[in-house]
């Protein structure tokens, strides 16, 4: 099967990360008595899912050669919008839809500015990050919104078949995005676009549609993360999501996505998000000083990418 060698190589790249994640897990299982317990693994999954979902949206943006700094603020928008709607008495399902539509629209605005204003993604989404946070504060008066219905806040607490509900949502998003990236024309087009936008255009790909859709998707997934977070915290939180853009970007890049576009995988991003949570969770379990832990997080992010680079060059 010589024809498939390239595919195997791709799997190897994610394999590197998987190896790192597994090694870390094994170390933690021996170093702490509580790491490898159902309860902690459940926590780990729950702690990862919010960033995990945002990072998947970010992966699309990064594959397309862009970046989205506004995801954190959009998490805040979702939190306040859904809380306002629910407190205002709207049923849960339409409220979720409206919140997702609002977040998707903000993402679409990013895409619009990038596509038609030719504003670099970094700047367009930096502006949105500021503006959306301002809107959140204005909407909420910078105050928490309490009084959400139990039916809504209860969701995040549910456990099905031993897995927390948040995990199922994340898992669903993983499946959907995996299919999108690997099995659909849309996914193929994003890779082509990120690799060479001019070649994509000349091959008949509607590049404006790609730009708009990746940022919209990122907005919607950030919105979804914000809704889940709101369910989990039981309140609409105006500061929700601050700084999340960095974790999401780090997850995707540690997972093998390249900021110059054209590469990145869903599984890689999932592993990247897991790695980052794992360091935090492990650090807490080991009782490491918070500041030293912060240093370790920084060093490990760099180290894992460095290691991956070494593997890449010695392999090829």
């Amino acid at each position, binding site marked *: 099967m010589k024809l498939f060698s390239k595919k195997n190589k791709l799997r190897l790249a994610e394999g590197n990360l998987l190896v790192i994640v597994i090694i870390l897990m094994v170390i933690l299982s021996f170093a702490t008595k509580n790491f490898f317990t159902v309860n902690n693994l459940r926590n780990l999954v729950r702690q990862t899912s919010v960033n995990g979902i945002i990072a998947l949206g970010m992966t699309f943006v990064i594959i397309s050669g862009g970046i989205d700094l506004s995801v954190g603020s959009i998490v805040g928008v979702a939190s306040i919008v859904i809380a306002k709607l629910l407190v205002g008495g709207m049923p849960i399902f339409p409220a979720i839809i409206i919140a997702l539509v609002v977040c998707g629209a903000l993402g679409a605005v990013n895409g619009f500015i990038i596509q038609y204003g030719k504003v670099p993604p970094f700047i367009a989404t930096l502006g949105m990050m500021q503006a959306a946070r301002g809107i959140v504060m204005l909407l909420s008066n910078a105050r928490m919104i309490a009084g959400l219905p139990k039916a809504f806040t209860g969701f995040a607490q549910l456990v099905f078949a031993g897995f927390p509900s948040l995990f199922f949502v994340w898992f669903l998003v993983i499946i959907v995005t995996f299919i999108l990236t690997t099995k659909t*024309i849309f996914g193929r087009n994003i890779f082509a676009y990120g690799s060479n936008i001019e070649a994509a255009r000349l091959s008949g790909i509607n590049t404006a549609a790609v730009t708009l859709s990746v940022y919209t998707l990122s907005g919607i997934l950030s919105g979804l993360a914000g809704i889940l977070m709101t369910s989990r915290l039981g309140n609409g939180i105006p500061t929700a999501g601050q700084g999340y853009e960095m974790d999401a970007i780090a997850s995707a890049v540690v997972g093998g996505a390249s900021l110059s576009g*054209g590469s990145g995988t869903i599984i890689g991003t999932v592993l990247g998000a897991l790695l980052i949570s794992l360091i935090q969770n492990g650090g807490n379990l080991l009782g490491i000083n918070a500041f030293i832990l912060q240093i370790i997080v920084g060093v490990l992010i760099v180290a894992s990418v460095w290691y991956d680079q070494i593997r890449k060059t010695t392999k090829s």
Partner: protein
Amino acid sequence: METRPFLEMKGISKQFPGVKALNKVDLAVYPGEVHALVGENGAGKSTIIKIIMGVYQRDEGTISLNGEEIHVTNVIEADKLGLAAVYQDLTLAPDLSIGENFFMGQFPRKKNGMIDWNHVYEKTADTLKALNVDVNPRLRITELSPAMQEMVAIAKTVHKKSKLVIFDEPTALLSNEEVDILFGIIKKLKASGVSVVYISHRLEEIFTICDNVTVLKDGQHVKTLPVKDTNESQLISFMVGRSLSDMYNIEHYPKGDELLRVEDLNRGKILKDISFNVRRGEIFGLFGLVGSGRTEVVRAIYGADAIDSGTVYLNGQKEIIKHPSQAIALGIGLLPEDRKHQGLALSQTINHNINLASYKAISKFNFVLGKKERERSTESVKRLRVKTPSIHQLVGNLSGGNQQKVIIAKWLCCESKLFIFDEPTVGIDVGAKQEIYKLIEELTREGHAVILISSYLPEVMGLADRIGVLHEGSMSHIVEREQFSEETLLRYASGL
């Protein structure tokens, strides 16, 4: 000719991961000699150059200058030894001015240590003028046409007064006029005793300016012999390992109905009232000097650029094409002139690139049928004989000729009826060239139409049924095959 070579390489080998790029290659270049280096794509020509210049380090073998063994580890050392090269991939910084590119890495300083900008621009202007290149040295590289960029790269290298100058496919992007300028430069170098290494896929150039020729094949030295003792077909058989019949000898099939008609196409000052038609089974050539607007004509038809006015008919039906996707739906395929920047997603696989423009045909509800996708790629790779270990290889890792074939495969998959080839054989070896010509022949046999743009006169003349000649954006003449002659075409192209 002196007896001692200026540069002598013995038993040079170089291994890249998975590829033995060079295997015990010998090369000797004498002062005042123009030495040609030929071989198929991937034969190892550029690798030799980079080893001489210290960009790569050899695995084994010796290199000596004037009999003295040297170990060059970087470009600065090479420069000090009097070695200079015009590399195959344009190595200019696009955001910087011509002058800055000229002096990059060795700016002249004023007494106070600051860069002497006046010197930079005056010296650059002088050099350019001396080489007959007419351009403002303060322009940025991005503002220049590819041909002008190549001339700048050449001028930048030549003005250094080196003892050995290497040209790696300098003419790929040039038209006749600039080629003449380049040959003038090379002759001057030779006259002043400089050694020249000259790499090209256009074999007749070898016979125009070179003294000796070395043939490489698969990283191995095949033969070194004086140019006067050989001929094109012999060189080709050394390179390819078999002899090729007459390159341009393709079958011309009977023409069918009119497929494309263009009327009064206008776009700013670039295109003026362009009208022509193309019939099924026909090869319509577009010829003109660099910048005459050939690329603009086909991009306008293809919907890649907006036009001011003009009408396009396909099968007699009036069509308004505003986006490449519409052109594709109508059965038009474009192989752009700049394959790296416009034709290929280099960081993606062959499989992806081949199917890029035609996913609709192999999908259900927008889901790609992976098996069909792979089948199609595998079939195309076989049909076009793309040299690759796997359809999952990244296109960026292929040699130029094979990259070109991938783009052609892309349009074959679209079941295009009109194929537009803009400079399809740039940087491609004779073997691959002939394969592309055969392919064009095959397309016309199946009743497809082809528009062929080439700066390389023998190519258009050899293949086209008719040639539309462009001069400064207007198509002054359309010449029938019977009337083809170099002289007429060049005259029309110059607006005379």
